């Protein structure tokens, strides 16, 4: 079941800080609705994905070595 993620201005600033990016309070407040919307949609998407046991689900095969390419 999808859950609505809880995001706060302080959380946005903390995550940005973790990535070395300064996000002041006003900018974080502007971003908040867009981030909340995206995370809610991602949560809904994830809720509809099956739990996969196949190896490396969703990831591409490793590229061939250059000399193996046609």
């Amino acid at each position, binding site marked *: 079941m999808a859950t609505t993620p809880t*995001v706060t201005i302080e959380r946005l600033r903390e995550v940005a800080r973790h990535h070395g990016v300064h996000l002041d309070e006003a900018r974080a407040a*502007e971003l908040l609705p*867009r*981030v909340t919307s995206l*995370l809610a949609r*991602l949560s809904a998407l994830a809720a509809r994905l099956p739990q996969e046991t196949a190896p490396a689900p*969703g990831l*591409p095969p490793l590229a061939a070595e250059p000399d193996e390419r046609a």
Partner: protein
Amino acid sequence: VIVDDPAFASAAALGRAFARRERSPVDVVEALLARIARLDPALVCFITVTGERALDEARVAERELAAGRTRGPLHGVPIGLKDLIDTALVRTTAGSRVLATHVPARDATVVERLGAAGILSLGKLNLHEFAFGTTSTNPHWGTCRNPWNRDRVPGGSSGGSGAGLAAGLFPLALGTDTGGSIRIPASCCGVVGFKPTFGVVSRTGVCPLAWTLDHVGPMARTVEDAALLLDAMAGPDPRDPWSAGRAEPGSFGRDLARGVEGMRVGMPDTLFFADLEPDVEAAVDAAVRVLEGAGARVTRVRWDLLDEAYTAFHALLASEAAAFHRPWLAERPEDYSEAMRAALEIGYMVSAVDYVDARRFQQRLRESLAEAMRGADVLLTPTLPRTAPAIGEPVSREPLLAWNRFMPPFNLTGAPAISVPCGFDRAGLPIGLQLSGRIGEDATVLRVAAAYERETDWHARHPEDA
């Protein structure tokens, strides 16, 4: 062969005329440079014009052709390069302030291949800042304008490529497409834009936007020209691990003349046909009748999962772009536009788990496309739900309302997709038709596009004042 007016001659016709010594590459480059000098101050298609270099290369091509040394069907033909594609010793800005003085030491792989084919660069083309947007309204290098109506955007991010082709500034251009950036400007400007299968063209030396979604592709005024240009630049590249084994054998244009008799054209019955502008809907309906008249069988097909495609696309795009830009955004945030900076900052908020789920969804969407294509050889949709917006007009960010919402499914799946002109709205703005195919079946998409083009004359119309 119509090459009297080099501004609107096809690349194929120019190449043939050069090979037969009926026209001079130097004369054509001079004519196009004069046209650029006259029109580009208003259109802002170029960030850098490399006129002297183009003339030098044209003189070399002329000498080689005179000596019987032909490098291919586009030998001596000029091109414009989107300015996020590295060119040795020529400034490559990515439409940004961050890279305003960046001069690469080495050509991108695609540029090396164009050189080997004898194709001449006229310069570097305007784009949306770092290709992260759909309008090409660029705060650092000027607002690129649509030649059909200069108050309208040319689309983006390869806006200079689309606008310059429509204005007759060059017969060929390179674009890149992460979420529609080749097909959107092709649709808005009434030209051809082809996003090949993921991996067909190397991205080495191309400033990334999102590694798992980025494609390089040809733009032109005819399908044949796009196919010839793709032939010149496709193929595996040891320096791009994603480019392995995707190129089809032979020429991408090998089937252009075969027509569509008996082919199955599928119309996905969700997402792509909701909330269209009436003129777009009418033009696409008419295109369906044209293909039926040419012998194709048009049917409805079901493609599942499309409503969530934009969400997965947004997560991958924002987080991969945020990772690429992390050092610059940390050290010099003031060098980004406000819009770009905000889009990147959102990327940091996507968790690793969300990212993996978006990648899992990507694989499921590929599977659902393969299922949808069991009943069709190609898919047909509008390229965009509307014609070009006015410059400065706000465009929706809501996934199911975004004006590029028909684009991401083909970036996520990596399937080939082309936009060809299919009409005009009542304001005289071009409308695009999107044709797509199975992964790796680029020649089939080009074949259907060429068949449609032969039955119509939309591609032969040009803006009045261009």
